[in-house]
């Protein structure tokens, strides 16, 4: 899939056509809902306490609905007029602002009890105008955000970084602004379900520990090499997962192996039966 950031500035990318997807396309809505729910979960707000939440890049207010459902009040920023018009038309409960987060946000110190942002922050890494400097804009955004957050509050940014440099650019700017925290990755072993969350804390408290990503069973500690008792057999092929050497292409073994591999990748595959890989009779 091409990256939308390469197609120009966000205020032009999220036009009327693009923004209708966020009201009509149930898959887009579903993905958005799930990410917002997870982001709110990562915020770990004290239960039973209605809070004031900032939604950076609120778009059509889909994540806002989740926030409202949880009994909080929210303020949303977005740079796309078309998306905000959709939000206004849907009569969302939050207050909306047309704002460029790279210009910094203007809120009084200690205003917000939590900040969420779904797939928005990576837009700041691109310079769409001549005077834009990504590092500068990121720093300005994080500085003004730090001021606007209550002490002990968290900010959770779901993001799709293009490469590790971009991720580093974002985290460096955040750390420079005074935040602590880091990246939480959900489903790190799946290319499709993998989601990254940048979790930032204002002020280090005892409770402020980086949350665990979902399904990180394969690599619980990223920097430590895992020790296993299992012996790795180099029998013929170096790749253990490759098809057995004797399996002729299009043979039954080869097909069974291929089906097994697709299952591992998370695709829906028909069950194996005695007919699997059998040749058909020719019709004529």
């Amino acid at each position, binding site marked *: 899939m091409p990256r939308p950031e390469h197609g120009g500035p966000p205020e032009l990318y999220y036009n009327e056509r693009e923004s209708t997807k966020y009201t009509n396309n149930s898959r887009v809505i579903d993905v958005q809902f799930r990410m917002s729910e997870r982001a709110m979960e990562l915020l770990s707000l004290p239960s039973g306490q209605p809070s004031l939440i900032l939604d950076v890049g609120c778009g059509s207010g889909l994540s806002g609905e989740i926030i409202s459902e949880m*009994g909080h009040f929210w303020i949303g920023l977005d740079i796309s007029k078309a998306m905000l018009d959709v939000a206004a038309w849907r009569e969302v*409960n939050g207050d909306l602002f047309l704002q*460029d987060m790279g*210009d910094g946000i203007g809120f*009084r110190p*200690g205003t917000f009890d939590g900040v969420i942002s779904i797939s928005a922050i990576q837009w700041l890494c691109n310079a769409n105008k001549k005077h834009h400097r990504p590092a500068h804009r990121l720093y300005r955004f994080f500085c003004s955000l730090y001021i606007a957050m209550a002490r002990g509050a968290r900010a959770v940014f779901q993001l799709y970084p293009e490469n590790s440099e971009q991720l580093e650019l974002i985290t460096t700017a955040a750390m420079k602004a005074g935040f602590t925290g880091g990246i939480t990755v959900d489903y790190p072993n799946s290319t499709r379900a993998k989601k990254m969350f940048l979790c930032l804390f204002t002020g280090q408290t005892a409770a402020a520990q980086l949350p665990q990503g979902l399904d990180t069973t394969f690599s619980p500690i990223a920097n430590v090499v895992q020790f296993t008792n299992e012996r790795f057999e180099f029998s013929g092929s170096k790749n253990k997962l490759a098809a057995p050497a004797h399996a002729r292409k299009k043979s039954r073994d080869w097909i069974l192996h291929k089906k097994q591999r697709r299952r591992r990748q998370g695709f829906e595959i028909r069950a194996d039966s005695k007919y699997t890989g059998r040749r058909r009779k020719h019709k004529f």
Partner: protein
Amino acid sequence: MRLLTHNMLTSHVKGAESGYPLILEAAEVILRNVDFNPEFIKRMLSKVNWDVLYQTAKAIGHLNDIPEQLQPNVENDEEFLRKAHHVLLEVEVKEGHLICPTSKKKFQISNGIPNMLLGEESSS
């Protein structure tokens, strides 16, 4: 934009050190029913700058009898909380302007959404 939000807002124009409060000019105000949540209002009372709230509500003509000074021990006064709730969350500015007090930059509010975009000269 509601008055609670206005109360939290400062100017983000570069160089505007004391950009608070932004001056609110309302051309059209609508009232919208919002569920009363006493817990939330109590929490917000500690964050809200009451003077600014009073002056702004007065300026746009939706004072709803809130007192000029915030009295101590109002947390259990439900009548007061309901009034504060109305002013904070139910009064919504639909059309108008926000003006930065130091740079005098005008931000237009249309359809309830303030346009806070800065031009090239004040953003970089």
